[in-house]
């Protein structure tokens, strides 16, 4: 990792109390995101995968500060966010933007789409006429001819077209980082392909950095340089995408990849590597959160939480598993010392 990270996350935590009962007492805590740490390098696409309850959407909202974290620090280009000396929220949002999953709900149904796109720059002080001009240019950049589409309302567009508008809207403020939260998940596969091509083009044209969140492993693999796997609010594996796909080390990552359909009728999947459903993030298991579904779980896994450590034979590939780090007390752990990295 030679370049300085663009976004640096340390110890990011968000817990939601669950209130219930007659007196609305706190009955449990949803540990949505717990001590999350990772870096987003400039110019890369970092794919974030995980299943429901893993906290990836919460993480996106924490990065955009749409929700306040309970603990932890996020730095943008070295500057802290919030506080007296740090980046204001307004400035943060000028540098980092987000595209949401629901393309229809993300657009004001009473505004023509060109206004929705122009709203961002307008809110940051750009004059109305210039903002509209920028909006029209962006609509063209995302493949929507302004003459045809600028005056339309969201309900007059298809899902794919709306998502393009959302992308244009995110780009209108000229951010450096775009967070895509399940941006193509709700689209038909043939339309999703068009939008993916568009995202690749835009990234190059506008020199963007992407944080691509998805539950669809195939799409993440297609788009990303590095991939980060989350489980129940924790990072379990990070690494270059080709490396992680070829040599997944964490048992959860392996199960996830094995669960992908093979697309080869002659070699169908014959067994699932993990059973049961993703557990409830309320009161997660002690120690390693995956241990309840892991076939390699041992006593040490319940006692101690495995830290994210670099794998012995790789430089860029980290995983949080007692089996993979030396001298952890796990029967399958390798011997010898290794650097621990976060």
């Amino acid at each position, binding site marked *: 990792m030679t370049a300085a990270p663009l976004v640096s996350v340390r110890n990011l935590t968000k817990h939601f109390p669950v209130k219930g009962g007659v007196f609305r007492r706190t009955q449990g805590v949803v540990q949505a995101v717990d001590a999350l740490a990772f870096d987003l390098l400039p110019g890369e696409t970092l794919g974030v995968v995980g299943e429901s309850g893993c906290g990836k959407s919460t993480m996106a909202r924490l990065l*955009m500060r*749409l929700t306040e974290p309970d603990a932890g620090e996020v730095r943008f280009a070295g500057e802290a966010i919030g506080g007296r000396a740090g980046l204001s*929220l*307004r*400035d*943060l*949002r*000028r540098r980092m*933007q*987000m595209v*949401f999953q*629901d393309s229809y*709900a*993300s*657009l*004001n*149904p*009473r*505004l*023509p789409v*060109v*206004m*929705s796109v*122009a*709203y*961002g720059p*307008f*809110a*940051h002080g750009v004059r109305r*006429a210039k903002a*509209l*001009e920028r*909006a*029209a240019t962006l609509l063209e950049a995302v493949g929507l*001819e*302004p*003459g*045809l589409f*600028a*005056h*339309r*309302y*969201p*309900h*007059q*567009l*298809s899902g794919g077209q709306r998502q393009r508008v*959302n992308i244009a*809207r995110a780009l209108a*403020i000229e951010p450096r980082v775009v967070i895509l939260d399940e941006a193509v998940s709700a689209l038909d596969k043939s339309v999703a392909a068009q939008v993916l091509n568009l995202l690749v083009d835009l990234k190059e044209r506008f020199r963007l950095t992407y944080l691509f969140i998805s539950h669809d492993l195939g799409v993440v693999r297609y788009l990303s340089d590095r991939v980060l796997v989350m489980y129940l609010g924790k990072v379990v594996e990070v690494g270059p995408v080709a490396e992680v796909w070829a040599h997944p080390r964490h048992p959860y990552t392996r199960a996830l990849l094995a669960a992908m359909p093979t697309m080869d009728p002659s070699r169908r999947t014959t067994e699932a590597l993990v059973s049961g459903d993703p557990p409830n993030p309320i009161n997660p298991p002690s120690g390693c959160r995956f241990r309840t579904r892991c076939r390699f779980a041992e006593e040490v896994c319940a006692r101690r939480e495995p830290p994210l450590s670099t794998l012995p034979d790789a430089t860029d590939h980290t995983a949080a598993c007692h089996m993979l780090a030396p001298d952890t007390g796990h029967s399958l752990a390798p011997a010898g010392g290794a650097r621990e990295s976060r």
Partner: protein
Amino acid sequence: MSDSTVLTLPSPEAALLLARRGRGYWKNVWARLREDKITIAVIVVLVAIILSAVLAPFLTPHDPLTTSVLKRLKPIGTEGHWLGTDEIGRDLWARMVYGGRLSLLCGVLPVAVALVVGGTLGVVAGFAGGVVNSAIMRSMDVLYAFPSILLAIAICGILGSGIGNTILALSVTFIPPLVRISEAVTTQVRSLDFVEAARASGSRTTLILRYHILNNVLGPILVYATSLISISIILASGLSFLGLGVTPPSAEWGLMLNNLRQAIWVNPLVAALPGAMIFLTSMCFNLTSDGIRQAMDVRL
């Protein structure tokens, strides 16, 4: 969705002009409304009633206040007085159309005032949430605890009768329900994704309110307010009937109903006329607001 004409625009501002003319949400509502024959008919009737009140001097040569002992309680169809006369000889048709002015005024003005005051409070409460919301909503709850007619009577009783006090009392009565609905709709809209996206773009709150909240909440609030007009007319008439509203000798339907109470034994048709008018007008307002609400319920 198929728009085959490709337009070459000189500038984005032109695009915005086109947006105003485009087939937007309100155009859609209007199109649906046009198909609803019943609502159109009702709107026509309503417009007729309003016009008859406005153009009253042109519709009758008689003065609503001129009495005549000789011509008391003439029946419908009397020469010169096609709707008859009331218990002190005043022409009923004249009193009806002139009375419409006051009755409609007492119907629309309180709702308009309540809309401005209550709507603002409600939107603020809905958008701000938290303590501000609680403060506003709980204050309204206090007023809401009273049945509207009792509240109106109480206020009029304290302030005295007269049209100004009637309008004031009715405005106060209608503020709590309007606050409630504005707050509910605003809370709902505030949690929608596009508002969150607006927040995520780093925009200031006032801009968000202006561009994203207002245009989405005004519709439902206006429809609700329209449905309150009919209630307002009835309440105003009720207050006049009780002697707390408009004072005699002004023409106002509720007051007329009160005065003609005894006449029901002598000339029932004439006595029932003001009541019928109240009924008709409030029904029309109700049906209109229903029709508009249905037309607005477009599954976009």
